[in-house]
């Protein structure tokens, strides 16, 4: 393996600044790595070799010409296939969008390109981001680089697996109920869900509009912060975008000083149903933060227990409407257009063939929940729960600066283990969902390996709206304290894929 793929994004940027490596070399090294391991990992749905090298070459040219470049210029990145990139296939993991090449860039992609970040390709995901394992992808399951028989988490399993397999130093994910943080936890990487409205949704193929949030995935806290800064900020194309300065995330990631920080452990997110190894690593991390000077108290958020059912009403409701546009009329898959079928029949046949079982399940659920006569009992009630959860957070933030919990109740499970049990699958997101419902910032940071299975455990931090910087403060403190114990970030303990296979 090339040394270049083992570097962090910050280190790669430094190598380019000092002239020790070019973006083309770095990009090529990662393309080679993808060629070597992605047959096993299957993190990518589409690798844009030509486009990536052209972008890299352009950045090298600008650097040679002495142009002022942004901090991550020339660093490669893997993009979740739910964000549009002009001219590059974008499927959202669904057959119904097979072959679609968007005619426009999402705002996130525009900002990546403006920052000179090289987009290697599009990563695998559960279809329309509906899932926690990538097993709902229409294009096959991604494998967890820590154990290829296990799932990498989802829906953004492709993005987290790509950085965990050293196929890219950075990736973009989107988090609707934990789709950045849960895969981050399962792959021993950092996954950040920014404040809702802190990053633009323009060009993000919508799952649930009021929950979807693009965010950074990386192997270190600083890398995540650098990427966060590159993509965040007000976007007039997204009405729900927040018109405020981006929180000082990079500064927070460099300082990582938790002395005096008030940390609340959420009472409701632990105990029964949580894997002992997960709880052990979580509590050790809390102790570590206490030693670093944080003030830790237990906090109760009594309505969190209703978060999961409320989420599974709001999400399918919005999704049932968002996915209505996939009707085979304008783009994507079209089945049965043989001149004898009506438009209605063609739509029906295309959706039957193009949507997977979980997507159909949620469209049906959401259509029902919004129906006249049921709306108040389902969607209306779920919105009330949402308000109560936001109040739980607000009350907690009167006492503490951040809240913490395990990122997931368990470590990565085996492929096929929960695919027939939707409820067991949904429970993966118990800890992560409340932050989406409230629009808060939240992140998962690696905090060790569970004793039972030797798999990564994620430490979940939640912070108030537009206080994303606090996530990085905690993450950086934890990361440097643990690195002293481990002699590096957790990822250095990941198996060598080429060796093991």
């Amino acid at each position, binding site marked *: 393996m090339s040394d270049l793929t083992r570097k962090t994004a910050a280190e790669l940027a430094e190598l380019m600044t000092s002239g020790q490596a070019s973006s083309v070399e770095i990009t090529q090294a990662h393309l080679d790595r993808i060629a070597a391991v992605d047959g096993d990992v299957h993190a990518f749905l589409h690798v844009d070799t030509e486009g990536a090298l052209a972008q890299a070459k352009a950045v090298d040219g600008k650097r040679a010409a002495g142009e002022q470049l942004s901090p991550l210029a020339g660093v490669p990145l893997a993009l979740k296939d739910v964000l549009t990139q002009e001219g590059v296939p974008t499927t959202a993991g669904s057959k119904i969008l097979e072959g679609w090449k968007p005619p426009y860039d999402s705002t996130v992609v525009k900002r990546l390109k403006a920052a000179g970040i090289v987009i290697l390709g599009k990563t695998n995901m559960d279809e329309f981001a509906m899932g926690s394992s990538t097993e709902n992808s229409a294009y096959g399951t991604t494998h967890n680089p820590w154990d290829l028989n296990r799932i990498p988490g989802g829906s953004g399993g492709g993005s987290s697996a790509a950085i965990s397999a050293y196929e890219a130093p950075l990736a973009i994910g989107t988090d609707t109920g934990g789709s950045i943080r849960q895969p981050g936890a399962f792959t021993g990487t950092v996954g950040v869900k920014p404040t809702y409205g802190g990053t633009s949704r323009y060009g993000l193929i919508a799952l649930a509009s009021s929950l979807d949030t693009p965010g950074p995935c990386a192997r270190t806290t600083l890398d995540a912060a650098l990427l966060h800064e590159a993509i965040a900020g007000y976007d007039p194309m997204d*009405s729900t975008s927040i018109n405020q300065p981006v929180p000082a995330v990079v500064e927070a990631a460099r300082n990582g000083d938790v002395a005096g920080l008030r940390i609340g452990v959420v009472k409701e997110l632990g105990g029964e149903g949580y894997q002992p190894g997960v709880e052990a690593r979580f509590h050790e991390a809390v102790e570590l933060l206490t030693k670093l000077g944080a003030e830790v108290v237990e906090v109760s958020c009594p309505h969190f227990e209703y978060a999961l059912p409320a989420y599974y009403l709001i999400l399918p409701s919005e999704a*049932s409407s968002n996915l209505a546009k996939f009707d085979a009329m*304008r783009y994507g898959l079209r089945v049965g257009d043989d001149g004898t079928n009506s438009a209605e029949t063609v739509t029906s046949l295309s959706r039957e063939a193009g949507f997977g079982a979980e997507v159909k399940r949620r469209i049906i659920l959401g259509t029902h929940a919004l129906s006249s006569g049921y709306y108040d009992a389902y969607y209306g009630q779920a919105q009330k729960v949402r308000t109560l959860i936001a109040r739980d957070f607000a009350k907690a933030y009167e006492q503490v600066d951040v809240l913490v919990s395990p990122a997931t109740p368990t470590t990565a499970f085996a492929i096929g283990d929960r695919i027939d049990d939707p409820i067991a699958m949904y429970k993966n997101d118990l800890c992560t969902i409340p932050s989406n419902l409230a629009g808060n910032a939240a992140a998962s940071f690696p905090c060790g390996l569970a004793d039972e299975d030797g798999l990564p455990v994620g430490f979940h931090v939640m912070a108030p709206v537009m206080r994303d910087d606090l996530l990085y403060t905690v993450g950086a403190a934890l990361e440097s304290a643990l690195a002293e114990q481990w002699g590096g970030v957790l990822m250095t303990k990941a198996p060598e894929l080429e060796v093991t296979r």
Partner: protein
Amino acid sequence: MTAAVLEIDDALATYDPVMGLEVHVELNTKSKMFCGCPTEFGAPPNTQTCPVCLGLPGALPVVNAKAVESAIKIGLALNCEIAEWCRFARKNYFYPDMPKNFQTSQYDEPIAFNGWTEVVVDGETYRIEIERAHMEEDTGKSTHVGGATGRIHGASHSLVDYNRAGIPLIEIVTKTIEVPPAKAAAVARAYVSMLRDLLFALGVSDVRMDQGSLRCDANVSLKPHGSTVLGTRTETKNVNSFRSVERAVTYEITRQAAVLSSGGKILQETRHWHEDTGITTSGREKSDADDYRYFPEPDLVPVAPSREWVEELRATLPEAPSVRRARLQEDWGFTDLEMRDVINGNALEPIVATIELGVTPAAAKKWWLGELARSANESGHDLDALGVGPAEVAEVQKLVDDGTLNDKIARQVFEGLLAGEGTPAEIIEKRGLALVSDDSALLEAIDRAIAANPDVVEKVNSGKPAAAGALIGAVMKDMRGQADAAKVRQLLNEKLGI
């Protein structure tokens, strides 16, 4: 298939009509409701589109502030309350010309509500209560090809033009309208006509019914005299001229009366209006179970117009139509009866515009009511669809004023204008219509008249100059009207030495 109908008088002898009118107004904002695409009418298909109005995956809407401003103005002009906080909602249903398969509209939180307005019919004023005015986006436009009817049934394929998708619409919904039964259809027409004038005065829409920028859906039901129970209603869609509004309402009254009086039931359905045959036919059956699964649009933030802004907009409103009518009547010196004819003839705005071009009120009224409104009535067109506007009227009157034409010849110029023969100058040229101002030709005609009427000449000479009128008539006849009568009189007087 033509349904049985009763005569309108027979229908109204038994039933009272109840109406509700929904008018869709396309705003004349430069860009669409939720994106920056242009809104001009008539561009080649699908050239005014972008990811947002095509509903491409990932695209998001952003509210056009100018459209909100127009909506508030319309609400204020209709005496509505303006919401302090309101939201958009998604109306979910499938149709190929609707890119997202939901329409971003407003549901239970409209921007304007609880208003009223007035219309005048035959000198009587009727108050119309306004339920709401809300913002929404237009759909694309489908063209069904290969069938006999132009409708989707029987078509071999359909073409969709998304230029219209996302154009800002305001939907204005009345409360139930109950007026004297015999006036119902005329009130419906007057209401739409009044809205056209009001929206034109506000400057928020092109209000071109022929281009679909003002469209009316008419809900009509009947109930037996004295009943308080509303009957089942039908909704006749896309009635696209004032005259059609009146005809469509009348038709539905006569059709429903025929169904009810033969013991039948009215189906709750949408109906299509046929301009050519003057009937409605069954469209889609509609029931209260139609479920659009409305929910607040999560891609948009609430619209919360500040009270200061609303008051600023209120201050910009033109005067109320009734106040304006009274002022104009006084300025013009028209009698009540004359003003009523102007209003009933839908000629108020054209007359205002014509007077602004320098024509006297009397002359403007003469042409608009005497010539153009009459012609519109005969041909079954709306006045603004004739192709003759204030500019042409002013041009013709100018030619009358400078002696090129007289009223009689001017009427022939209008004939030419209505027939599309070109500009007034071209018509005068082609038809050879100008007054003869060549004295020699007039003098020859005068000589002929004198020679042909010695008895009249003798009367004049014997001290009865008034008798010369007969000679003038003879000259005008000789000139086939193409002479200035005043000029003829002057020359004749000179000749006769009076």
